[in-house]
């Protein structure tokens, strides 16, 4: 009789098992964080959105207008890692950038280099520029515009998307 309450039939408190969802596979979260989305089908299509092209890249009339990036450049720019995640590309139907005064002068520099290349005698010109400005003032977009101008004129583009990569301790170094 004394053992009555210690039998297997006595009350047991069941452990609750929580259904935890599986964590996403390795690398998935980072991939989501770094994903570059260049188009949004919910955004309205903008009628008459002109593209930035070799003829209008140095046109002062275009200051203050937003010009699209040609579709065939997008893969090149993506491969060169020219787009950044902070740049609002996912809000619009297709990527476009604002033409500022500085953009037009950039286009003028590109034009000068092309002209100097065609005048073989004088030697080709090289434009060297440091871009500065406060946070979010459009410096990386300025570089992106320079790159799209270079691609559409058949130049070779070498891009360093983040200078800090070459300076942090994460990667191999040899003497």
């Amino acid at each position, binding site marked *: 009789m004394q053992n009555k309450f210690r039998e297997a039939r006595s009350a047991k408190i069941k452990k609750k098992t929580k259904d935890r969802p599986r964590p996403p596979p390795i690398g998935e979260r980072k991939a989501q964080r770094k994903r570059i989305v260049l188009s949004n089908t919910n955004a309205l299509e903008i009628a008459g959105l002109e593209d930035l092209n070799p003829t209008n890249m140095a046109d002062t009339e275009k200051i203050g207008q937003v010009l699209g990036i040609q579709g065939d450049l997008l893969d090149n720019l993506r491969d060169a890692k020219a787009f950044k995640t902070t740049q609002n590309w996912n809000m619009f139907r297709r990527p476009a950038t604002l033409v500022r005064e500085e953009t037009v002068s950039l286009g003028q520099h590109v034009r000068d280099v092309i002209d100097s290349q065609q005048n073989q005698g004088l030697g080709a010109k090289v434009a060297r520029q440091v871009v500065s400005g406060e946070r979010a003032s459009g410096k990386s977009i300025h570089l992106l515009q320079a790159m799209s101008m270079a691609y559409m004129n058949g130049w*070779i583009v070498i891009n360093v998307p983040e200078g*800090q990569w070459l300076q942090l301790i994460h990667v191999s170094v040899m003497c």
Partner: protein
Amino acid sequence: MYIQPHLTSELLSRMAYSNQAVLKKLKLVGKLPADLKLGNNATLHSLAMLGAENHTLAWPVWQTLWKELNTRADSKNARPSVLIAIDSVNHWMGPTKYRSAEYNTIHAQQFNMIKHLTRLLFAQSEDELANGGMVIAATSGSNSPSLPSLDILLRQLAARAAGTAMTDPNFPMPQPYSKPDQRVLSLFKDTDETTLTTLKGLSRLETRGLLDYFAKGGIFKESITDTVVGQMRGLSGGGIVGEMAKFGTRTSGNVAVHLSSAGLPAPSSERITA
């Protein structure tokens, strides 16, 4: 001097994939070093891919490729111009986290690739970029280490553009008794053609264009009047484009909401209607 095999390999891979169409048309003209093995009729693309796929070959590949790109174009061999774009260049103007075998800090300019690209940005030479092109480097605003020597360099570039002579008392110089970074300051003497572009806030015209685009894209729901343009410029620190994009692309698109979130009174016309 140090080399960075993996990073060089990544740079070659970005270059090979993004310029595929152009590089595939360019034939090798010079002789390859013995350790790089490519078949006959190799193109610059296959050379770049060799380095992109194997980091141990990346540095010799980069050197060979750079020599090839700088071969002067002639009737037989076309060689296009080159654009070099560098973002967050300020990280290259100071000490790194790396240590040498003697446990001394390594300066960023002691890395071969960084040194090479910085030289292209600041110094002209006859043999390099023979077919013209552009070297453009942007500093970083949000992730910028404190580097007084770089600040002086940028101020010196600005002063030169404004026509201030180096002998002028107002020409920016390092503080007396400070220890400026000579690797950075000496860059100024290397060239007189590097220009400084300082990006400021957007003008009214540019602001209107940008807001117009936001409105046409369906995310900015105000009608764009002179008042709204002025308000948005004011709210975004005088037309700082990134800040304006944040305000302009918020779903409500209502100026009064932004003003109240910034702790400012709503514009008078809306206060009357509310």
